[in-house]
């Protein structure tokens, strides 16, 4: 479903993504991990047609992201880390706009929005009466997730989807994501919450300084690195020094 070859993105002198090769079959739930600035979001933005790669190729569902970005966009859903929405609209208006952009008939869109509203505990009154600027971060995130899934995409990219969600909503979303994967959707899940990734993702890809440094199931990665958890695997592959010792030393400096 997703095929990436030598994908590279440069911003001026900085190489954000360096010659990544990756194949993700349909129905797979892949965790994309990496430290801050590793190139995860840049990779996702290239796969959603938001950024042009500097070199290399990428296909989503057989469509080239460079030559046919509109077809790629039609079949993908994207939950951005920023949680950006048009704040002066109500959630209802915003979701109707998104539905129109994907050519979903109004009656069907209304039904879908109500369905998502029920799932996320957002009443129709809340959806219709309040502007998104007045929403809490968690409520807004629910709308952003709804807007990414409204058109029933084949491929969904989640970039830190649990941002701001309360424990119940987070649990519901995690279950929804695994269920969607079981239904055949391809899901790329980008997060810093490693235990969630460990629990829900069948495959984990780790990017460090723009390059892919690990790819496999959690068990395979633990075996390859000789570690006992994904957190330790991540630490071993991406940290340059002993983090625990550094944190203790820093705390001592702060309280001195």
């Amino acid at each position, binding site marked *: 479903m997703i095929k990436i070859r030598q994908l590279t993105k440069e*911003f*001026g*002198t*900085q190489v954000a993504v360096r010659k990544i090769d990756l194949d993700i079959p349909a129905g797979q739930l892949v965790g994309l991990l990496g430290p801050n600035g590793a190139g995860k979001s840049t990779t996702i*933005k290239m796969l*959603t*047609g*938001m*950024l*042009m790669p500097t070199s290399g190729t990428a296909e989503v569902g057989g469509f080239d992201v460079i030559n046919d970005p*509109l*077809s790629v*966009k*039609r079949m*993908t859903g*994207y939950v*951005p880390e*920023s949680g*950006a*929405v*048009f*704040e*002066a*609209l109500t959630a209802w*208006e915003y979701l*109707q*706009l*998104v539905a*129109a*952009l*994907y*050519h979903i008939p109004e009656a069907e869109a209304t039904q879908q929005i109500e369905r998502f509203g029920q799932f996320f505990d957002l009443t129709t009154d809340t959806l219709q009466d309040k*502007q998104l*600027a*007045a929403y809490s971060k968690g409520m807004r995130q629910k709308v952003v997730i709804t807007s990414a899934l409204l058109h029933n995409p084949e491929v969904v990219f989640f970039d830190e989807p649990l941002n701001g969600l309360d424990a119940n909503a987070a649990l519901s979303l995690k279950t929804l994501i695994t269920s969607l994967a079981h239904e055949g959707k391809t899901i790329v899940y980008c997060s810093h919450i490693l235990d969630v990734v460990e629990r829900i993702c069948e495959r984990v890809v780790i990017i460090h300084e723009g390059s892919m440094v690990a790819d496999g199931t959690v068990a395979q990665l633990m075996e390859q690195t000789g570690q006992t958890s994904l957190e330790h695997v991540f630490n071993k592959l991406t940290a340059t020094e002993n983090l625990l010792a550094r944190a203790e030393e820093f705390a001592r400096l702060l309280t001195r």
Partner: protein
Amino acid sequence: MQETKSIVATIDRQQLKALLKCYFRLSTRGRVTQSMSRGGKPRSLFFILGMYVFIGLMNSVMLLTIQLDVFTYTVILHSMTFFVVGMALTAESGDILFNVNESDVLVHRPIHSRTLLLAKSLNLIAFALILALALNLFPMFFGLAASGAQPWFPVVHLISLILLCVFCAGLVVCTYGAVIKFLDREKFDNFAAWSQVGMSIVFIGGYQVVPRLLQRFEGLTFRPYVRYFLALPPAWFAGIDSLVAGNLPASEALPLVLLGFTATASLAYLAISRLAPSYGEGLTRLSESKTRAPKTTRARKRATSRRNPILRWWLRDPIERRAFRLAAVYMRRDRDVKLRLYPSLSFYLVFPLIGLLDRNRSGFSAFVPLITVWMLGTMPMSALETLRLSSHFAAADIFAIAPLESAAPVFHGVRKATIYYLLVPSLCIAGILIAYLATGGRESLILALPGLIAIPTISLLPGLLDEYLPLSRPAARGEQSSRNMGLMFLTMLLMLFVVAVAYVAWISGVIWILIAIELAVMGLLHWTFRRVISNRKLERGE
């Protein structure tokens, strides 16, 4: 034909309709936020519309008392509209066309760049049309009294107004489109701001041509000189009024009309067919973060040298110093701020230059320093207002989180940055120009003193009238242009008052007494204003 069909095919009507509906809502609602910024109804837009209706009424009454023919009447009307609409579009277009925050909302959706650009262009046209209609509401009907006007003049004028708005919007969109097509992202940031300055100068210059032509032709009609107007865009649209609802012969009006239609159609075609694809690419490029090359030793040295003793003393308060730095960085680096700030400043550049150019013909020399300094004196006020707005407005919550009792040190830091980086260089340039170019320059520099003395006090007004926090408000539709126009009219009123007082004092030989009195009054006002600003407690959000 085939090409036109393929262009039309890439425009998705359903998406276009949805986007237009969305932009209309965004434009009319303003913004309610949880941050420290204010929001709500677009009051500023209503204010400016009211102001334009009033100006239109005054103009039409004034113009009709001198019994103009349709061509002259509509050239003047279209020139004013061209100026007002052009300036407003220049101020607002950056936010509409290149809203970086919008990229996470729309860029990953399956929207063809032509559909998106068309939606935004129509949004710009609608905004322009609202302003144009407000300005022309009364003149449209009063035009029936112009000599040679036909009963259908209002309808024809409405159509020519729509075309003028399409032309202005097309000009703005094409300028940006060309900039984004031919420049890479790094250069775009700087060039976009300067292209806006250029557009502002074109719009102001275009407006200034008309009164000068009236002077030159020494009459109340342009009709005998129609051929000279071929180079003036507002006259093209006046040609439509005069041909269909006036009494200009077809042989004279048709070239103007053809030019108007051809230029408007060409701009629309160019924007949607040729520039739309690069606009889409440009939008994706804008969301890229830029990596700056490491500072050279020379640049580091320059940064260090900024810490000169005078500046260090002036910015001895650490909060003021950091706010000064914040404003300086945003004025230099942030595209949004640059797109708003520098075009609004072009107003200050053009009028003094026109004053200087007019010096010999109109015997205007004594007023040149006065006008220049007074106009430049309001520059910090204009820049401060512009620096209130930012797409990063949520980050201004830092001022509420920090243990600040008042916004005063933050305000003073930003104010000093506008004085240091914008006003002082402008005053130096103006001083040199006045001293060496204006007739009787050096003697008349004394006339600039009352203005200079008032500048520090005037620069306190934004903090006095309202709590001032930089970059703390989201831009709302019409806010920037209404602020610019509001300040422009305020400037003119202030200018009128001081020109009168200082000039009378000068010819009466009491200029130094006036300056002494002004020093005392301004000193007292300055002290009072600072106390009021310092004593105002910082509001901690909603």
